[in-house]
């Protein structure tokens, strides 16, 4: 790669960045006008600060260390529009295939707007509050109790206390952009001591609207002390049009709470998806983040746990599977702020064709975080000569009594293993598939047995079957599927 070409590309990116910020500016202007009457002052202030941050900085370039491996030029030059509420009708049949078997309830958002007719809440235990964020804010403004037509009970206590208090709008422009522009999302509160057995499914649907749509889903999950819950945040597309999802989730876990969060990215190959999960862990909490990146064209997943109470444990588990020209970037910032905490990062990547993956795991151990135990492992399988992985561990340690380890491996499917399976009668595609599944399934071993795990397992199996079939097609020199290259000019 020549430096000159790189510079030109970045200069071009810079030029288009300011140009394309125009659509964000007008969106923000429209929304600010609407919100003048509707939103509480604290929220408007939060949004305004965030907007200024975003507008001052624009999108990062590859000169920014945190974005070194991901070029945002294509994202920055696409003039994304807000989706008008109700402009695209999605039917229950269209989203049936996205159902999570065994989920307790489901909130559905279409192009960023809550779709009550598609959501299924059913009988909720009194210890779980779940509702669209916009409605929760409106309730907070009215100060009233939920009325009969509410799909769910929702007492918006704690929203002001938590919303926007964790996401880092100073450092991360995407969090800033989301804070300024979010129109809806989910608000969940799990009461003290409540054990919610069935996973909660949040389905964010991008549906073609004839223009490139942007959405900024915002999720706030408050898990009170000693509560247990699992939440699946699931990004899907209907149709093949491009869209930009920029999601931010703040998950606050109270003392001794146990929470599992699943992020599933399975949008179409033209999709841009940036998601940020900010986890705040109090004393004794046990929080798991499972990032499953299977779809999307340009995907960036940020996971940022802060272990802010003694003895907190955090598992940051991930799998990314890319083919065609997919670009899947995993960025983690794990902050140990208090003593005796442990964090475990395990990411497995499978990349075929010209797909590119990034694992950038940064661990910061603050001065007071003695006896920290932090571990980071990234394992990758590259299935083609043109696939690429950039893996970068980064440790910053300011305490003196800590244990930090990291490791990364990059390999191919072992021909020995493939031959062994084939020599027993298993045909090549299935054998390849079995080996890939065995590798990918390591991420399943790190999940509790639950419907969420079953759901992820079936998604992985489907994705790998596609990959194996695709691989065989390429091997027998059939032309590559066209849609796999639909954002080719992105570069």
């Amino acid at each position: 790669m020549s430096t000159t070409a790189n510079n030109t590309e970045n200069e071009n990116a810079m030029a288009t960045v300011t140009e394309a910020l125009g659509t964000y500016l007008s969106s923000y202007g429209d929304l600010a006008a609407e919100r003048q009457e509707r939103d509480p002052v604290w929220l408007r202030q939060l949004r305004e600060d965030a907007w200024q941050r975003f507008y001052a900085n624009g999108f990062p370039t590859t000169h920014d260390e945190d974005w070194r491996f991901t070029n945002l030029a294509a994202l920055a030059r696409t003039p994304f529009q807000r989706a008008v509420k109700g402009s695209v009708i999605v039917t229950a049949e269209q989203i049936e295939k996205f159902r999570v078997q065994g989920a307790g309830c489901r909130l559905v958002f279409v192009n960023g707007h809550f779709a009550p007719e598609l959501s299924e809440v059913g009988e909720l235990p009194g210890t779980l509050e779940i509702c669209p964020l916009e409605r929760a804010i409106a309730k907070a403004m009215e100060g009233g109790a939920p009325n009969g037509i509410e799909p769910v009970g929702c007492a918006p206590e704690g929203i002001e206390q938590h919303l926007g208090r964790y996401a880092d709008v100073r450092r991360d422009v995407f969090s800033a952009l989301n804070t300024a522009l979010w129109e809806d999302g989910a608000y969940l509160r799990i009461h003290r001591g409540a054990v919610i057995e069935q996973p909660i499914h949040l389905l964010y649907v991008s549906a073609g609207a004839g223009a490139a749509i942007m959405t900024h889903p915002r999720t706030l999950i408050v898990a009170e002390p000693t509560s247990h819950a699992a939440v699946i945040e699931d990004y899907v597309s209907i149709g093949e049009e491009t869209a930009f999802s920029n999601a931010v989730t703040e998950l606050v876990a109270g003392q001794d709470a146990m929470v599992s969060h699943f992020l599933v990215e399975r949008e179409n190959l033209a999709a841009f998806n940036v998601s940020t999960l900010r986890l705040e862990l109090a004393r004794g909490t046990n929080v798991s983040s499972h990032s499953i990146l299977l779809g999307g064209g340009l995907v960036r997943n940020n996971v940022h746990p802060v272990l802010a109470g003694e003895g907190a444990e955090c598992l940051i588990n991930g799998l990314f599977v890319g083919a065609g020209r997919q670009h899947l970037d995993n960025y983690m910032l794990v902050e140990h702020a208090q003593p005796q905490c442990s964090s475990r990062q395990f990411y497995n990547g499978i990349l075929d064709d010209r797909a590119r993956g990034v694992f950038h795991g940064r661990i910061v151990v603050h001065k007071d975080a003695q006896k920290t135990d932090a571990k980071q492992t990234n394992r990758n399988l590259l299935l083609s000569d043109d696939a690429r992985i950039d893996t970068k561990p980064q440790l910053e340690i300011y305490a003196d009594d800590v244990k930090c380890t990291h490791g990364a491996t990059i390999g191919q499917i072992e021909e020995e293993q493939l031959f062994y399976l084939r020599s027993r009668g298993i045909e090549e595609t299935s054998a390849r598939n079995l080996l890939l599944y065995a590798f990918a399934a390591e991420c399943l071993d790190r999940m509790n047995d639950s419907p969420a795990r079953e759901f992820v397992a079936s998604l992985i199996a489907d994705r790998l079957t596609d990959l194996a079939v695709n691989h065989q097609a390429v091997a027998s020199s059939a032309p590559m599927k066209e849609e796999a290259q639909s954002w080719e000019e992105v570069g």
Partner: protein
Amino acid sequence: MALLEIQDLHASVDGHEILKGLNLTVNAGEVHSIMGPNGSGKSTLAAVLARRETYEVTRGRVLFNGKDLLEMKPEDAACEGVFLAFQYPVEIPGIGNAYFVRSAMNAIRKFHGQDELDAMDFLPLYKERMRILEMDDKLVNRSVNEGFSGGEKKRNEILQMAMLEPKLAILDETDSGLDIDALRIVAKGVNAMRGPDRAFLVITHYQRLLDYITPDFVHVLVDGKIVRSGGPELALELEDKGYGPEADVPQALPA
């Protein structure tokens, strides 16, 4: 018709010719032993028959059950009834032992147009054969060969053979690294499978295994060709006298 008919087989690896005109005929029901010094081509023969792609056949032909074996992919050969017990069984983390064997059985059944076996039908059979091979039940769900001892790996090969019921079983130095007890167990597993419809190709360079698995024929492979053939008594003679003047690798025989 012979089960296996090898004519003038030449095979190379990375441009080096290893098999240099090998001829062999094996009928159903027979046990043939191939002996010979290291580097004579024994394992190459096994790999070619199992259709390992890294071995290039440059001349000759191989008929299996009247079909051209050299046209087959490894999985097709397996489905037609060729089984190779590996000299070095491969570890496959993340795939359960029983699941693997059931997948293989079902692939072969599918090939023959038979219904697939479900876990309920499969498991009792699998466990019964494990008992014959004196294998621990805990190996059922362990990953294929992962963390197995040398003896467990070899027994696992024989277990797979017992489940897949091939027409031709090739044992590639299955005896190497086995203590006498394990050897006896492996031989018991093999002998239990001998029958009029099945043939064995037992590759070894020790007479020891042949004390337990008595061959019908013994062949001496030297420098890519079979230089002598005879009955079981030939193995004893080799043990005594070595592979003769054709074998220029005298250290191949055990002390």
